């Protein structure tokens, strides 16, 4: 059991709030939320972060690890300042997502699952985000969705992120 906690007090408060959604003795139900909270604060889920969540929720580390590795949005490696996930599934592809992807790759000089040299941005290929009406769709750091990102919008988007 890890003795020192890794997250801020606010993060544990947020986890407690999640735990309260479920019946007593069902703390494990909050594991996905707890990992998302940890990721939001630390940027990614290191092994020690996983162990921390495990001990906080009284789970076996391997059980938390199973969850962390199963769901696609958990970062098991440290990403750049921004993780940009872009959907390339069929509906988005039909609306030109691949052109957007090519433009992103060209401007950043990276491929999927890579981080640019400035450490600004990690590019991720994603599956359907349930927003195909707004295709092409990207998500910034798991939480902020942008729709209709055509080739012509890529440069502006990158400028904006750099400026933040």
């Amino acid at each position, binding site marked *: 059991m890890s003795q020192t906690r890794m997250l801020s007090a606010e993060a544990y408060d947020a986890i407690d709030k999640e735990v309260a959604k479920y019946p007593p003795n069902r703390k494990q139900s909050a594991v996905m939320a707890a990992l998302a909270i940890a990721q939001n604060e630390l940027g990614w889920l290191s*092994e020690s972060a*996983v*162990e921390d969540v495990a001990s906080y929720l009284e789970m*076996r*580390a*391997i059980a938390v690890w*199973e969850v962390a*590795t*199963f769901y696609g949005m958990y970062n098991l490696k440290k990403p750049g300042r921004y993780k940009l996930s872009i959907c390339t599934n069929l509906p988005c592809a039909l609306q030109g997502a691949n052109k957007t992807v090519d433009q992103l790759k060209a401007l950043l000089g990276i491929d999927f699952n890579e981080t640019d040299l400035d450490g600004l941005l990690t590019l991720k290929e994603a599956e359907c985000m349930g927003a195909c009406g707004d295709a092409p769709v990207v998500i910034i750091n798991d939480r902020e969705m942008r729709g209709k990102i055509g080739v012509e919008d890529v440069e502006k988007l990158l400028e904006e992120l750099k400026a933040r």
Partner: protein
Amino acid sequence: MITLEIDGKKVEVDSGSTVMDAASKLGIHVPHFCYHKKLSIAANCRMCLVEVEKAPKPLPACATPATQDMKVHTRSEQAKSAQKGVMEFLLINHPLDCPICDQGGECQLQDLAVGYGGSGSRFEESKRMVGTKELGPLVSAAEMSRCIHCTRCVRFGQEVAGIMELGMVGRGEHSEIMSFVGSTVESELSGNMIDVCPVGALTSKPFRYAARTWELARRKTVSPHDALGSNLIAQLKGDSVIRVVPNENAEINECWISDRDRFSYEGLNSLDRLTEPMIKIDGSWEEVDWAVALDHIKEKFSTLNADPNRIGALSAPQATTEELYLFQKFIRELGSENVDYRLRQADCSNTGANALPWLGMSIGDVEKLDSILVIGSNIRKEQPLLAHRIRKAVNQNSASLALINPMRTDTLLTSAQEFTVSPSRVPIFMQQIVKAVSVQLGVEIPAAINHINVEPDAQKVADMLVVGKNKLILIGALSRHHPDRSKIEKISHILGDLVDAKIGLLSDGPNSLGAEATKNIPARSGLTAREMTANALDVYFLLHAEMGEDSCDPDVAIDALKSAKLVVAMSAFKDEVSNYATVMLPISPFSETSGTFINMEGKRQQFGPVAPAKGQSRPAWRLIAALGKLFGFGGFEYESIEKVREALRSVYDDLDANLRKKIDINEMPDALRPIEGIERFADVPMYSVDAVVRRAPALQSTKEAIRDYLWLGSDLSKELGAVNGDVVRVEQDGKHIELPAQIDVSLAGSVVRVPMTSNASKVIGGIGGPVQITKVASFEANV
């Protein structure tokens, strides 16, 4: 009851049964991988797909409930095509490296592939590679590309071992079986994962590449390490046991065995085996013929002309009943009453009744208990599969469980209440329970404890014990070895009578009951094991006993033995006994002789030799019979083990009668005063219980085997200002040793753990008692 038809045959099954159950009942084999009768149903391999009439698609037999008038076809076109389709998928990413796979010849995938696989593969892509996983010294996961994702190993951990150490990590095709980054598997039952793995992904590390499975001879035997008596199959290449697997026995070990039972065989092949009779002449050892050795004993004996009262005989509970019977008979013929097997028992005083070391019930009935109180046992490590039955009682029968131990032992059950009580406080704690129970039941409080205070923890145990019907008070090895053992047992019996609980006594080795039955205990006038070693006698006979390891007070015992004039050690190993013996006689370990062990439920299990005797070694029963004849005693003419067994018949009748006898204890010991300062807790670690396991290298390289530390709780470590690795001096009975410190928060407050069978025990002695500790060097200075 439900009637259904499989492959045209009618069968009746209980409602709730699956199609697989029904097929098994008919003796119809439905191919499968993920299904395992002792594990939950996963239905993930899909190998068991069968055709069910009126169902639109094939259904998995393992998970499909049997329904009235269902018609199932396991070999129809639809069923076979489904099974073949699944087999094709299973093989596309499998390396098909059977020629170099340890599982080759006993692989379920290989067997079924012959029947269901296509001849060539339609898969032209490159195969998935899965990296090696490091799981520790026992289980090899070097070949994980062979894994077929049946999750049996994961379910075994969660459901049987009670601890999830492996998981299926990742998703889809990228799923891999592994432990959490950097963790090894540490369950005391981990080796069973090797058996449940249907392919060669998880294999035995010590066995790896030792042989092809078809070269092996297979012979049945019985575990020599604990009182459960797990049934084993020893597998041999040539003359050596090179693998041990479970022999299923629903009443005893089901289809499991502990790691100790599985991997200890390495000890049998140890280079330390004693293979020739040896006598010590002028301080050095000489190999001699049997005849010379025996004559030497006889001659030495007559020159010594020892007073029979100065002859001591120490047997170990690893000896067979046949050996034990002849051993005591020989000693008693010599005129001595000094014979004892209770080598680790510090307090051998009578409890006032004939309380035999047995479970008080059958092993299977443990699952049906409503409440269980364990006093002084790290149950998972002491009797691993009994602990499994207890987990079943709690998980499946909602039994309540409380434990009283010097440290939290982690039963893997969240509902268990564990009270950490320093060893010397155990008797008084139990008296408090008796008082609380008496109050609750409205019966008279025994006068001796009328004045004592009941702590809240004792009250909690009392609350648990007054409800429910089927109860067991289980007294473990820590209590059996306790300096106040007889008091703990007496109070337990009184408590058991009050709350109508059975009493179970767990003892050392596989055959304590055999030793009791054959009277390897001194009658009134004789000396106990501890008394025999407290002051030197002239002559000692040792049977399977290694007194530097097996004694409750090793340093004292070794001194006594060293100053004796004749020490005859009948042993399978030489190093330890050569320190104090004057004659070493090579005898067979359990694996090379016929014998009988009587397990904790009183069941007698006979076994034959699985391997030929090594070198000149011989079964001890033959040797003792020969000695008896040589000494001119009548009644030692046993030409076969059957003859010995005939003589044992009345012994067994007496035992059976005694097991059933009601034990009456009504005299409550006076209230006891615990030790004020720091006291020592000296357990026998799981992998040092006997001579064989102590010599098994793989087990000795597990974390569990580490014993040369001084463990202390966080309060004591703070008081002492000690951190892990600091050197601490510990003094007991005026003797002292320096040891590296390890902090263990599960220890009771004023307790330090210095285990038995450690180097320390040979210097400062054993059992419990007050100790002083001082820090002598800090870790940094040390390095």
